[in-house]
């Protein structure tokens, strides 16, 4: 089975490395990391991910800005999951897990929750 390509955009280096380790350990994914939100768009063009995990608050650029850029481009079909520490699970549930049409997963979550969420959108 072909492995799906996941792009993780988040400025926390330790976190992104571990997301990559865990997801690749399942054997189902190839993961690329982008720690610089301003380069997100270029990385998307180069890597052509099947799904993007995106942090909402990063230095120099915010998650929603990346989403806006993508909306008006060839990549608007790529599913995005927002991973963020800024809200509690209660608030996530209150927003019914969506923001700007994309899903929202609170940090931290278990790896299983992350994988389930990814599979729902691929």
């Amino acid at each position: 089975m072909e492995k799906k390509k996941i792009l993780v955009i988040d400025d926390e280096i330790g976190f992104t490395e571990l997301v990559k380790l865990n997801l690749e350990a399942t054997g189902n994914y190839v993961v690329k990391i982008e720690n610089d939100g301003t380069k997100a768009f270029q990385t998307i063009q180069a890597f052509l991910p099947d799904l993007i995990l995106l942090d909402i608050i990063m230095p120099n650029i915010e998650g929603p800005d990346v989403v806006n850029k993508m909306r008006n481009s060839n990549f608007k079909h790529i599913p995005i999951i927002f991973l963020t520490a800024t809200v509690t699970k209660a608030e996530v549930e209150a927003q019914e897990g969506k923001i700007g049409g994309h899903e929202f997963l609170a940090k931290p979550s278990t790896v299983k929750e992350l994988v389930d969420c990814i599979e729902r959108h691929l």
Partner: protein
Amino acid sequence: MLTGMLSHSPPLGSFEIHLAETLNKAYKLLEKKKFDVALLDLNLDDSSGLQSLKKLNEKCPLLPIVINTGSYPDDLGLKAITSGAQDYLIKGKYKSYGLSKSLYYAVERKRSEQEIQTAYNKFKETQSQLIQAEKINTIGSIASGVAHEVKNPLATILYGVEFLSTKLGNTDDEKIQLTLKSIKEATNKANTIIRDLLDFSSLSILKKKPEDINEILLQATKLIVHQCEKKGIEIKTELDKNLREIKIDKNRIEQVIVDLFVNAIYAMEDGGELTIKTYAEKLSHKDYEVISKSLKGFKDKEMVTIVEIDDTGPGFSEEGLSKSFDPFFTTRRASGGVGLGLAIAKTIMQNHNAYISLKNREQGGAQARLIFKS
């Protein structure tokens, strides 16, 4: 002679005079009747000097006292006034007009003193409430910042542990297993604390809808049924079926209720009874007075919906009763308690403009009471 002076003292009006030759006789008179002012001779048979003044003042703190006495050392006058007397008169050194004036002034001055004291007490109470509210606000903002910063590293640790678990999970090495388990548990605990802190600071986002409070209570009991069985706690419900729906944020109020249940369960380690009551009634004047000190929006005697959660535990200590709602106050620090549950509950209730109170029941155990506008 004194009586003579006082009965002929226009234009300041007249006095009804009662005479007591000893302090004890004065006490008896004071018990029977309300007096506006006392004229005290410092040289009585059963008491003398400033002792008389102090004793009389203690016995009747609201009674204005004017000292009327034979010559004494000069500074006794000043001492008398600083010890609670309104004025100090020396026998033979005043006429009827001076005497009545002194008595009238004494009454007025005492009244002013009382007004100032009452206003001051009210001020102190308001100040203390404002400080409390400010504390909670400040904690809220700090908590929010800290929580966010900590969540990221926590997420990294958790993912790290999960990864290590998958790689090392099948090892026979008990020590590795134990280490992984300990890290996971500790991280989850830290996560709970952070989540509670964030919860605490985001409490103003409410989604209010008409809800059936009995339904919410029953749902909440489902969450604790297992724990109660384990500890031998019987759950009793006396829910008023005719309650009207109240406009509340279901999730938040359920949070309050579950927190109160958890506290009740902790209080009944060796079993007991958890009783849940709901009813509607007119807000009593006494309750209205207490509630309106901290909440606007309730009207005296209006219909309210009341929820009572009773336990048969040991009840609150005095410290507990006064500090339970303080952020970070907990009696369960040893077992990992953070002390935010009730602070959060109170904030949620305040955001709903509803009231929460705790007390010890006469028959033993504690009671948590929630009052909602109907």
